[in-house]
Protein backbone atom coordinates (compact mmCIF):
# COMPACT_ATOMS: atom_id res chain seq x y z
CA UNK A 1 0.00 0.00 0.00
CA UNK A 2 1.40 3.41 -1.02
CA UNK A 3 1.75 5.88 1.86
CA UNK A 4 0.16 9.34 1.47
CA UNK A 5 2.68 12.06 0.50
CA UNK A 6 2.37 13.92 3.81
CA UNK A 7 3.21 10.75 5.78
CA UNK A 8 6.13 9.97 3.48
CA UNK A 9 7.51 13.47 4.05
CA UNK A 10 6.89 13.24 7.81
CA UNK A 11 8.66 9.85 7.86
CA UNK A 12 11.57 11.17 5.79
CA UNK A 13 11.85 14.34 7.88
CA UNK A 14 11.95 12.36 11.12
CA UNK A 15 14.46 9.90 9.66
CA UNK A 16 16.73 12.79 8.57
CA UNK A 17 16.35 14.42 12.01
CA UNK A 18 17.21 11.10 13.69
CA UNK A 19 20.27 10.58 11.47
CA UNK A 20 21.45 14.18 12.03
CA UNK A 21 21.04 13.93 15.81
CA UNK A 22 22.70 10.51 15.96
CA UNK A 23 25.56 11.85 13.82
CA UNK A 24 25.87 14.96 15.97
CA UNK A 25 26.05 12.93 19.19
CA UNK A 26 28.56 10.66 17.50
CA UNK A 27 30.67 13.66 16.48
CA UNK A 28 30.57 14.99 20.05
CA UNK A 29 31.70 11.58 21.34
CA UNK A 30 34.58 11.60 18.86
CA UNK A 31 35.67 15.15 19.68
CA UNK A 32 35.42 14.32 23.41
CA UNK A 33 37.63 11.26 22.98
CA UNK A 34 40.20 13.25 20.98
CA UNK A 35 40.18 15.94 23.66
CA UNK A 36 40.79 13.38 26.46
CA UNK A 37 43.63 11.85 24.42
CA UNK A 38 45.23 15.28 23.90
CA UNK A 39 44.63 16.48 27.49
CA UNK A 40 46.17 13.35 29.04
CA UNK A 41 49.29 13.81 26.95
CA UNK A 42 49.55 17.53 27.70
CA UNK A 43 48.98 17.07 31.44
CA UNK A 44 49.49 13.63 33.05
CA UNK A 45 47.47 14.74 36.11
CA UNK A 46 44.55 15.86 33.90
CA UNK A 47 42.26 12.99 34.93
CA UNK A 48 42.59 13.74 38.65
CA UNK A 49 42.30 17.52 38.19
CA UNK A 50 39.87 18.11 35.33
CA UNK A 51 37.88 14.95 34.55
CA UNK A 52 34.80 16.03 36.55
CA UNK A 53 34.78 19.37 34.73
CA UNK A 54 35.09 17.56 31.37
CA UNK A 55 32.16 15.29 32.23
CA UNK A 56 29.88 18.23 33.15
CA UNK A 57 30.82 20.03 29.94
CA UNK A 58 30.12 16.93 27.84
CA UNK A 59 26.81 16.43 29.67
CA UNK A 60 25.85 20.06 29.02
CA UNK A 61 26.56 19.71 25.27
CA UNK A 62 24.80 16.35 25.02
CA UNK A 63 21.69 17.26 27.04
CA UNK A 64 19.86 19.34 24.36
CA UNK A 65 20.73 16.77 21.68
CA UNK A 66 19.45 13.89 23.84
CA UNK A 67 16.29 15.86 24.65
CA UNK A 68 15.72 16.49 20.93
CA UNK A 69 16.41 12.83 20.14
CA UNK A 70 13.88 11.75 22.76
CA UNK A 71 11.35 14.20 21.29
CA UNK A 72 11.98 12.94 17.74
CA UNK A 73 11.67 9.35 18.99
CA UNK A 74 8.35 10.26 20.62
CA UNK A 75 7.13 11.95 17.43
CA UNK A 76 7.95 8.81 15.45
CA UNK A 77 5.28 7.00 17.45
CA UNK A 78 1.96 8.73 16.60
CA UNK A 79 2.83 8.84 12.88
CA UNK A 80 1.89 5.17 12.74
CA UNK A 81 -1.65 5.82 13.93
CA UNK A 82 -2.98 9.25 13.16
CA UNK A 83 -4.08 11.26 10.15
CA UNK A 84 -2.32 14.50 9.18
CA UNK A 85 -4.29 16.87 11.47
CA UNK A 86 -4.53 14.43 14.38
CA UNK A 87 -0.81 13.73 13.99
CA UNK A 88 0.11 17.39 14.37
CA UNK A 89 -2.31 17.82 17.29
CA UNK A 90 -1.04 14.70 19.08
CA UNK A 91 2.59 15.71 18.62
CA UNK A 92 1.97 19.20 19.96
CA UNK A 93 -0.12 17.84 22.87
CA UNK A 94 2.62 15.36 23.84
CA UNK A 95 5.28 18.06 23.85
CA UNK A 96 2.93 20.37 25.78
CA UNK A 97 2.28 17.72 28.44
CA UNK A 98 6.03 17.08 28.80
CA UNK A 99 6.76 20.81 29.05
CA UNK A 100 3.93 21.34 31.58
CA UNK A 101 5.24 18.52 33.79
CA UNK A 102 8.74 20.02 33.50
CA UNK A 103 7.48 23.46 34.58
CA UNK A 104 5.31 22.12 37.43
CA UNK A 105 7.92 19.71 38.82
CA UNK A 106 10.90 21.91 38.03
CA UNK A 107 12.71 18.84 36.74
CA UNK A 108 13.53 18.34 33.06
CA UNK A 109 13.96 14.60 33.55
CA UNK A 110 10.43 14.33 35.05
CA UNK A 111 9.06 16.22 32.04
CA UNK A 112 10.91 13.91 29.66
CA UNK A 113 9.69 10.89 31.65
CA UNK A 114 6.07 12.06 31.28
CA UNK A 115 6.61 12.59 27.53
CA UNK A 116 8.19 9.14 27.19
CA UNK A 117 5.38 7.51 29.21
CA UNK A 118 2.83 9.01 26.79
CA UNK A 119 4.89 7.81 23.82
CA UNK A 120 5.14 4.34 25.36
CA UNK A 121 1.35 4.18 25.81
CA UNK A 122 0.74 5.10 22.17
CA UNK A 123 3.43 2.69 21.03
CA UNK A 124 1.85 -0.16 23.03
CA UNK A 125 -1.40 0.59 21.16
CA UNK A 126 0.50 0.64 17.85
CA UNK A 127 2.11 -2.74 18.57
CA UNK A 128 -1.23 -4.24 19.70
CA UNK A 129 -2.98 -3.01 16.53
CA UNK A 130 -0.11 -4.27 14.37
CA UNK A 131 -0.16 -7.70 16.00
CA UNK A 132 -3.96 -7.78 15.56
CA UNK A 133 -3.41 -7.13 11.86
CA UNK A 134 -5.60 -4.01 11.56
CA UNK A 135 -4.84 -1.58 8.73
CA UNK A 136 -4.60 1.41 11.11
CA UNK A 137 -0.84 1.68 11.78
CA UNK A 138 1.15 2.77 8.71
CA UNK A 139 4.74 1.64 8.19
CA UNK A 140 7.48 2.07 5.64
CA UNK A 141 8.04 -1.68 5.80
CA UNK A 142 5.84 -4.48 4.52
CA UNK A 143 4.58 -7.62 6.25
CA UNK A 144 2.99 -8.02 9.67
CA UNK A 145 6.05 -9.62 11.31
CA UNK A 146 8.40 -6.90 10.05
CA UNK A 147 5.98 -4.21 11.21
CA UNK A 148 5.60 -5.88 14.61
CA UNK A 149 9.39 -6.01 14.86
CA UNK A 150 9.70 -2.33 14.01
CA UNK A 151 6.97 -1.49 16.56
CA UNK A 152 8.62 -3.57 19.31
CA UNK A 153 12.05 -2.14 18.51
CA UNK A 154 10.81 1.43 18.92
CA UNK A 155 8.86 0.51 22.07
CA UNK A 156 12.08 -0.99 23.45
CA UNK A 157 13.99 2.23 22.72
CA UNK A 158 11.30 4.30 24.45
CA UNK A 159 11.33 2.04 27.54
CA UNK A 160 15.15 2.11 27.59
CA UNK A 161 15.14 5.91 27.36
CA UNK A 162 12.59 5.91 30.21
CA UNK A 163 14.96 3.74 32.28
CA UNK A 164 17.87 6.12 31.67
CA UNK A 165 15.79 9.26 32.30
CA UNK A 166 13.65 8.16 35.25
CA UNK A 167 14.51 4.78 36.74
CA UNK A 168 18.28 4.68 37.34
CA UNK A 169 17.88 4.67 41.13
CA UNK A 170 14.61 2.74 41.23
CA UNK A 171 13.95 -0.90 42.16
CA UNK A 172 12.10 -1.12 38.82
CA UNK A 173 15.28 -0.29 36.91
CA UNK A 174 16.37 -3.87 36.20
CA UNK A 175 12.93 -5.33 35.31
CA UNK A 176 12.24 -2.33 33.04
CA UNK A 177 15.72 -2.60 31.51
CA UNK A 178 15.32 -6.32 30.74
CA UNK A 179 11.88 -5.64 29.25
CA UNK A 180 13.39 -2.94 27.02
CA UNK A 181 16.24 -5.28 26.04
CA UNK A 182 13.80 -8.07 25.15
CA UNK A 183 11.68 -5.68 23.06
CA UNK A 184 14.71 -4.24 21.25
CA UNK A 185 16.39 -7.55 20.49
CA UNK A 186 13.14 -9.35 19.63
CA UNK A 187 12.10 -6.37 17.52
CA UNK A 188 15.46 -6.29 15.73
CA UNK A 189 15.27 -10.01 14.95
CA UNK A 190 11.72 -9.65 13.58
CA UNK A 191 12.61 -6.51 11.60
CA UNK A 192 15.67 -8.07 10.01
CA UNK A 193 14.65 -11.69 9.60
CA UNK A 194 10.83 -11.64 9.28
CA UNK A 195 11.00 -13.33 5.88
CA UNK A 196 12.88 -16.26 7.39
CA UNK A 197 10.57 -16.53 10.42
CA UNK A 198 7.27 -16.18 8.56
CA UNK A 199 5.10 -19.28 8.13
CA UNK A 200 4.07 -19.33 4.48
CA UNK A 201 0.51 -20.41 3.76
CA UNK A 202 1.28 -20.71 0.07
CA UNK A 203 4.37 -21.36 -2.02
CA UNK A 204 5.53 -18.29 -3.95
CA UNK A 205 5.27 -18.78 -7.71
CA UNK A 206 8.92 -17.93 -8.32
CA UNK A 207 11.65 -17.59 -5.69
CA UNK A 208 14.62 -17.61 -8.04
CA UNK A 209 14.66 -13.82 -8.38
CA UNK A 210 15.09 -13.28 -4.63
CA UNK A 211 18.84 -13.71 -4.58
Amino acid at each position, binding site marked *: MELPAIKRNWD*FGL*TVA*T*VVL*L*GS*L*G*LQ*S*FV*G*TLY*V*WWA*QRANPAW*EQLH*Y*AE*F*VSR*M*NAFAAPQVVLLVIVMGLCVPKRLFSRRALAATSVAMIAVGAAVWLVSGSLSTGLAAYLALSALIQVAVVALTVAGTQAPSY*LTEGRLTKTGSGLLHLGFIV*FAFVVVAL*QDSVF*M*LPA*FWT*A*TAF*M*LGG*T*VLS*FYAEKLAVRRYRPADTSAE*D
Partner: protein
Amino acid sequence: MDTTAVFEAIRASILMLERLGRPLEWVLLAAAALLFLTAVVPGARRWLGHALGVTAVLLVAGEGLLVWFHWQLYQNAVVVVPQTGQITGTVAVPLWIESEKLYVWAVVVAAMALLARRHREELLPGAAIILAVLTAGAVVWGKPFTYPLPSFFGQYGAYLSGMASGDIAQAVPAYQGMEGARQFYYNTWYMWVHPPLLFISYGAFAMSFVATLRMVASRFSGYETTAYRWARLGYLPLTAGMLLGFPWAILAWQGESWWWSGKVNMSIMMWLLYTAYLHARLYLRRRGMWRLVAALAILSFLVLVLTYLTTYIVPGAHSYA
Protein backbone atom coordinates in the same frame (compact mmCIF):
# COMPACT_ATOMS: atom_id res chain seq x y z
CA MET B 1 47.70 -21.57 50.64
CA ASP B 2 50.81 -23.16 49.11
CA THR B 3 51.93 -20.21 46.99
CA THR B 4 54.97 -22.05 45.65
CA ALA B 5 52.82 -24.90 44.30
CA VAL B 6 50.40 -22.44 42.67
CA PHE B 7 53.31 -20.49 41.16
CA GLU B 8 54.98 -23.64 39.81
CA ALA B 9 51.75 -25.01 38.31
CA ILE B 10 51.02 -21.76 36.50
CA ARG B 11 54.65 -21.41 35.39
CA ALA B 12 54.54 -24.92 33.90
CA SER B 13 51.40 -23.98 31.92
CA ILE B 14 53.04 -20.80 30.62
CA LEU B 15 56.14 -22.73 29.54
CA MET B 16 54.03 -25.35 27.75
CA LEU B 17 52.01 -22.63 26.03
CA GLU B 18 55.22 -20.96 24.88
CA ARG B 19 56.82 -24.22 23.73
CA LEU B 20 53.85 -25.09 21.52
CA GLY B 21 52.83 -21.54 20.69
CA ARG B 22 56.15 -20.06 19.55
CA PRO B 23 56.43 -22.21 16.39
CA LEU B 24 52.71 -21.74 15.81
CA GLU B 25 53.20 -17.96 15.83
CA TRP B 26 55.78 -18.26 13.04
CA VAL B 27 53.55 -20.58 11.03
CA LEU B 28 50.62 -18.19 11.50
CA LEU B 29 52.76 -15.29 10.29
CA ALA B 30 53.75 -17.27 7.20
CA ALA B 31 50.12 -18.22 6.57
CA ALA B 32 49.05 -14.57 6.92
CA ALA B 33 51.73 -13.48 4.42
CA LEU B 34 50.65 -16.19 2.00
CA LEU B 35 47.00 -15.27 2.41
CA PHE B 36 47.79 -11.62 1.71
CA LEU B 37 49.75 -12.51 -1.42
CA THR B 38 47.03 -14.77 -2.81
CA ALA B 39 44.53 -11.94 -2.25
CA VAL B 40 46.54 -9.17 -3.94
CA VAL B 41 48.44 -11.01 -6.72
CA PRO B 42 45.90 -11.80 -9.46
CA GLY B 43 47.89 -14.82 -10.68
CA ALA B 44 47.82 -16.39 -7.23
CA ARG B 45 44.07 -15.86 -6.71
CA ARG B 46 43.27 -19.52 -7.45
CA TRP B 47 45.09 -20.50 -4.26
CA LEU B 48 43.10 -18.04 -2.15
CA GLY B 49 40.55 -20.59 -0.90
CA HIS B 50 43.31 -22.99 0.20
CA ALA B 51 45.26 -20.22 1.92
CA LEU B 52 42.12 -19.14 3.74
CA GLY B 53 41.39 -22.71 4.84
CA VAL B 54 44.95 -23.24 6.12
CA THR B 55 44.92 -19.95 8.04
CA ALA B 56 41.54 -20.80 9.58
CA VAL B 57 42.73 -24.26 10.68
CA LEU B 58 45.89 -22.78 12.23
CA LEU B 59 43.89 -20.10 14.04
CA VAL B 60 41.47 -22.69 15.43
CA ALA B 61 44.39 -24.87 16.55
CA GLY B 62 45.87 -21.86 18.37
CA GLU B 63 42.50 -21.09 19.95
CA GLY B 64 42.36 -24.69 21.18
CA LEU B 65 45.77 -24.22 22.79
CA LEU B 66 44.56 -21.04 24.47
CA VAL B 67 41.43 -22.82 25.77
CA TRP B 68 43.71 -25.45 27.34
CA PHE B 69 45.87 -22.70 28.88
CA HIS B 70 42.88 -20.85 30.35
CA TRP B 71 41.54 -24.11 31.76
CA GLN B 72 44.90 -24.66 33.50
CA LEU B 73 44.67 -21.14 34.94
CA TYR B 74 41.14 -21.82 36.14
CA GLN B 75 42.36 -24.97 37.90
CA ASN B 76 45.32 -23.27 39.58
CA ALA B 77 44.80 -19.49 39.98
CA VAL B 78 43.15 -19.71 43.38
CA VAL B 79 42.32 -16.67 45.54
CA VAL B 80 42.49 -17.01 49.32
CA VAL B 81 41.61 -14.55 52.10
CA PRO B 82 44.93 -13.73 53.83
CA GLN B 83 43.50 -13.38 57.35
CA THR B 84 41.41 -16.58 57.43
CA GLY B 85 42.86 -18.82 54.71
CA GLN B 86 39.36 -19.24 53.27
CA ILE B 87 39.25 -19.89 49.51
CA THR B 88 37.01 -17.41 47.67
CA GLY B 89 37.40 -19.15 44.31
CA THR B 90 39.61 -19.46 41.24
CA VAL B 91 40.02 -16.91 38.46
CA ALA B 92 38.19 -17.69 35.21
CA VAL B 93 40.16 -15.55 32.77
CA PRO B 94 38.03 -14.90 29.64
CA LEU B 95 39.47 -15.89 26.26
CA TRP B 96 39.03 -12.46 24.67
CA ILE B 97 40.99 -10.00 26.77
CA GLU B 98 44.42 -8.37 26.70
CA SER B 99 46.81 -10.15 24.32
CA GLU B 100 44.05 -12.39 22.89
CA LYS B 101 41.60 -9.79 21.57
CA LEU B 102 42.96 -9.43 18.04
CA TYR B 103 43.35 -13.20 17.87
CA VAL B 104 39.64 -13.75 18.61
CA TRP B 105 38.68 -11.13 16.04
CA ALA B 106 40.84 -12.97 13.47
CA VAL B 107 39.16 -16.31 14.32
CA VAL B 108 35.70 -14.74 13.87
CA VAL B 109 36.61 -13.15 10.50
CA ALA B 110 38.11 -16.47 9.31
CA ALA B 111 34.88 -18.29 10.23
CA MET B 112 32.73 -15.69 8.48
CA ALA B 113 34.89 -15.66 5.35
CA LEU B 114 34.55 -19.46 5.20
CA LEU B 115 30.78 -19.31 5.74
CA ALA B 116 30.11 -16.49 3.23
CA ARG B 117 27.93 -17.61 0.34
CA ARG B 118 26.53 -14.52 -1.43
CA HIS B 119 29.17 -13.04 -3.78
CA ARG B 120 31.73 -15.30 -2.14
CA GLU B 121 34.30 -15.10 -4.94
CA GLU B 122 34.18 -11.31 -5.04
CA LEU B 123 34.29 -10.81 -1.26
CA LEU B 124 37.05 -13.30 -0.46
CA PRO B 125 40.05 -11.14 -1.51
CA GLY B 126 38.95 -8.24 0.72
CA ALA B 127 38.09 -10.55 3.62
CA ALA B 128 41.44 -12.30 3.18
CA ILE B 129 43.36 -9.01 3.36
CA ILE B 130 41.54 -8.08 6.59
CA LEU B 131 42.16 -11.58 7.99
CA ALA B 132 45.86 -11.46 7.08
CA VAL B 133 46.25 -8.06 8.80
CA LEU B 134 44.38 -9.26 11.91
CA THR B 135 46.37 -12.50 12.11
CA ALA B 136 49.71 -10.73 11.71
CA GLY B 137 48.63 -8.08 14.23
CA ALA B 138 47.50 -10.74 16.72
CA VAL B 139 50.87 -12.48 16.50
CA VAL B 140 53.17 -9.44 16.36
CA TRP B 141 51.44 -7.12 18.86
CA GLY B 142 49.25 -9.49 20.85
CA LYS B 143 51.77 -12.32 21.36
CA PRO B 144 49.07 -14.52 22.93
CA PHE B 145 51.38 -17.57 23.19
CA THR B 146 54.71 -16.00 24.11
CA TYR B 147 53.61 -13.05 26.27
CA PRO B 148 50.19 -14.07 27.55
CA LEU B 149 47.87 -11.91 29.67
CA PRO B 150 50.43 -9.39 31.03
CA SER B 151 47.93 -7.43 33.17
CA PHE B 152 46.44 -10.55 34.74
CA PHE B 153 49.83 -12.04 35.57
CA GLY B 154 51.04 -8.66 36.88
CA GLN B 155 48.15 -8.50 39.33
CA TYR B 156 48.06 -12.19 40.23
CA GLY B 157 51.87 -12.26 40.60
CA ALA B 158 51.68 -9.31 43.03
CA TYR B 159 48.95 -11.14 44.97
CA LEU B 160 51.04 -14.33 45.19
CA SER B 161 54.08 -12.29 46.33
CA GLY B 162 51.99 -10.61 49.01
CA MET B 163 50.67 -13.94 50.25
CA ALA B 164 54.15 -15.52 50.17
CA SER B 165 55.68 -12.61 52.14
CA GLY B 166 53.71 -13.51 55.27
CA ASP B 167 53.24 -9.78 55.85
CA ILE B 168 49.51 -9.20 56.31
CA ALA B 169 49.87 -5.45 55.57
CA GLN B 170 51.23 -6.35 52.12
CA ALA B 171 48.90 -9.29 51.48
CA VAL B 172 45.56 -7.62 52.29
CA PRO B 173 45.61 -4.82 49.66
CA ALA B 174 46.90 -7.26 47.03
CA TYR B 175 44.09 -9.67 47.95
CA GLN B 176 41.45 -6.92 47.83
CA GLY B 177 42.55 -5.85 44.36
CA MET B 178 42.68 -9.44 43.07
CA GLU B 179 39.37 -10.49 44.61
CA GLY B 180 37.66 -7.34 43.29
CA ALA B 181 38.96 -8.07 39.79
CA ARG B 182 37.91 -11.73 40.12
CA GLN B 183 34.36 -10.89 41.17
CA PHE B 184 33.62 -7.84 39.02
CA TYR B 185 35.79 -8.46 36.01
CA TYR B 186 37.20 -11.90 35.23
CA ASN B 187 34.47 -14.15 36.63
CA THR B 188 31.46 -11.94 36.02
CA TRP B 189 28.90 -13.35 33.52
CA TYR B 190 29.11 -10.09 31.64
CA MET B 191 32.74 -10.63 30.61
CA TRP B 192 31.76 -14.00 29.18
CA VAL B 193 28.95 -12.53 27.06
CA HIS B 194 29.70 -8.87 26.20
CA PRO B 195 33.09 -9.21 24.39
CA PRO B 196 32.19 -12.31 22.30
CA LEU B 197 29.02 -10.59 21.09
CA LEU B 198 31.06 -7.56 20.09
CA PHE B 199 33.68 -9.66 18.28
CA ILE B 200 30.95 -11.47 16.32
CA SER B 201 29.58 -8.06 15.32
CA TYR B 202 33.08 -6.82 14.40
CA GLY B 203 33.54 -9.86 12.13
CA ALA B 204 30.20 -9.31 10.39
CA PHE B 205 30.89 -5.58 9.97
CA ALA B 206 34.26 -6.39 8.39
CA MET B 207 32.45 -8.48 5.76
CA SER B 208 29.88 -5.70 5.29
CA PHE B 209 32.72 -3.21 4.77
CA VAL B 210 34.28 -5.38 2.05
CA ALA B 211 30.91 -5.69 0.27
CA THR B 212 30.37 -1.91 0.49
CA LEU B 213 33.78 -1.26 -1.09
CA ARG B 214 32.88 -3.68 -3.90
CA MET B 215 29.60 -1.82 -4.36
CA VAL B 216 31.34 1.57 -4.53
CA ALA B 217 33.92 0.23 -7.00
CA SER B 218 31.47 -1.58 -9.28
CA ARG B 219 28.19 0.38 -8.70
CA PHE B 220 26.43 -3.01 -8.63
CA SER B 221 23.45 -2.89 -6.24
CA GLY B 222 23.71 -6.61 -5.40
CA TYR B 223 26.79 -5.87 -3.29
CA GLU B 224 24.80 -3.26 -1.35
CA THR B 225 22.26 -5.94 -0.38
CA THR B 226 25.10 -8.23 0.69
CA ALA B 227 26.66 -5.40 2.72
CA TYR B 228 23.29 -4.82 4.40
CA ARG B 229 22.85 -8.53 5.20
CA TRP B 230 26.23 -8.63 6.92
CA ALA B 231 25.55 -5.33 8.68
CA ARG B 232 22.24 -6.52 10.11
CA LEU B 233 24.00 -9.70 11.28
CA GLY B 234 26.53 -7.47 13.06
CA TYR B 235 24.04 -4.96 14.42
CA LEU B 236 22.12 -7.52 16.48
CA PRO B 237 25.04 -8.75 18.65
CA LEU B 238 26.44 -5.20 18.79
CA THR B 239 23.17 -3.90 20.24
CA ALA B 240 22.84 -6.89 22.59
CA GLY B 241 26.46 -6.60 23.74
CA MET B 242 26.23 -2.87 24.41
CA LEU B 243 22.86 -3.14 26.15
CA LEU B 244 24.10 -5.89 28.44
CA GLY B 245 26.93 -3.59 29.48
CA PHE B 246 24.53 -1.03 30.92
CA PRO B 247 23.36 -2.73 34.18
CA TRP B 248 26.85 -4.14 34.72
CA ALA B 249 28.47 -0.70 34.34
CA ILE B 250 26.01 0.84 36.82
CA LEU B 251 26.95 -1.85 39.37
CA ALA B 252 30.70 -2.15 38.73
CA TRP B 253 31.50 1.53 38.06
CA GLN B 254 29.20 2.97 40.72
CA GLY B 255 29.92 6.67 41.27
CA GLU B 256 32.11 6.97 38.16
CA SER B 257 31.19 9.01 35.08
CA TRP B 258 31.91 6.01 32.89
CA TRP B 259 29.61 7.12 30.03
CA TRP B 260 32.15 9.66 28.81
CA SER B 261 35.18 7.34 28.98
CA GLY B 262 36.97 7.07 25.63
CA LYS B 263 35.94 3.51 24.80
CA VAL B 264 32.30 3.99 25.81
CA ASN B 265 32.24 7.24 23.79
CA MET B 266 33.58 5.59 20.68
CA SER B 267 31.38 2.51 21.08
CA ILE B 268 28.28 4.70 21.35
CA MET B 269 29.45 6.64 18.30
CA MET B 270 29.94 3.40 16.35
CA TRP B 271 26.46 2.16 17.33
CA LEU B 272 24.92 5.54 16.44
CA LEU B 273 26.59 5.48 13.03
CA TYR B 274 25.42 1.94 12.25
CA THR B 275 21.92 2.93 13.42
CA ALA B 276 22.10 5.99 11.16
CA TYR B 277 23.25 3.71 8.28
CA LEU B 278 20.30 1.34 8.78
CA HIS B 279 17.88 4.29 8.97
CA ALA B 280 19.31 5.99 5.88
CA ARG B 281 19.08 2.69 4.01
CA LEU B 282 15.26 2.79 4.31
CA TYR B 283 15.41 5.49 1.59
CA LEU B 284 17.94 3.75 -0.62
CA ARG B 285 15.74 4.17 -3.68
CA ARG B 286 15.81 7.97 -3.44
CA ARG B 287 18.06 9.60 -5.99
CA GLY B 288 21.72 9.61 -4.92
CA MET B 289 20.88 8.10 -1.52
CA TRP B 290 23.19 5.13 -2.14
CA ARG B 291 26.17 7.48 -1.86
CA LEU B 292 25.15 8.58 1.65
CA VAL B 293 24.43 4.96 2.63
CA ALA B 294 27.83 3.82 1.34
CA ALA B 295 29.59 6.74 3.06
CA LEU B 296 27.88 5.90 6.36
CA ALA B 297 28.79 2.21 6.01
CA ILE B 298 32.46 3.00 5.34
CA LEU B 299 32.62 5.65 8.07
CA SER B 300 30.99 3.25 10.56
CA PHE B 301 33.66 0.60 9.92
CA LEU B 302 36.49 3.12 10.21
CA VAL B 303 35.02 4.22 13.54
CA LEU B 304 34.83 0.54 14.56
CA VAL B 305 38.59 0.25 14.00
CA LEU B 306 39.16 3.48 15.95
CA THR B 307 36.91 2.16 18.74
CA TYR B 308 39.08 -0.93 18.99
CA LEU B 309 42.26 1.16 19.09
CA THR B 310 40.83 3.59 21.66
CA THR B 311 41.36 1.00 24.42
CA TYR B 312 45.09 1.36 23.85
CA ILE B 313 45.28 5.06 22.95
CA VAL B 314 42.95 6.71 25.47
CA PRO B 315 43.22 5.34 29.02
CA GLY B 316 39.91 4.71 30.77
CA ALA B 317 37.72 2.08 32.38
CA HIS B 318 38.12 -0.29 29.40
CA SER B 319 41.93 -0.09 29.45
CA TYR B 320 41.83 -2.82 32.10
CA ALA B 321 40.94 -5.28 29.36
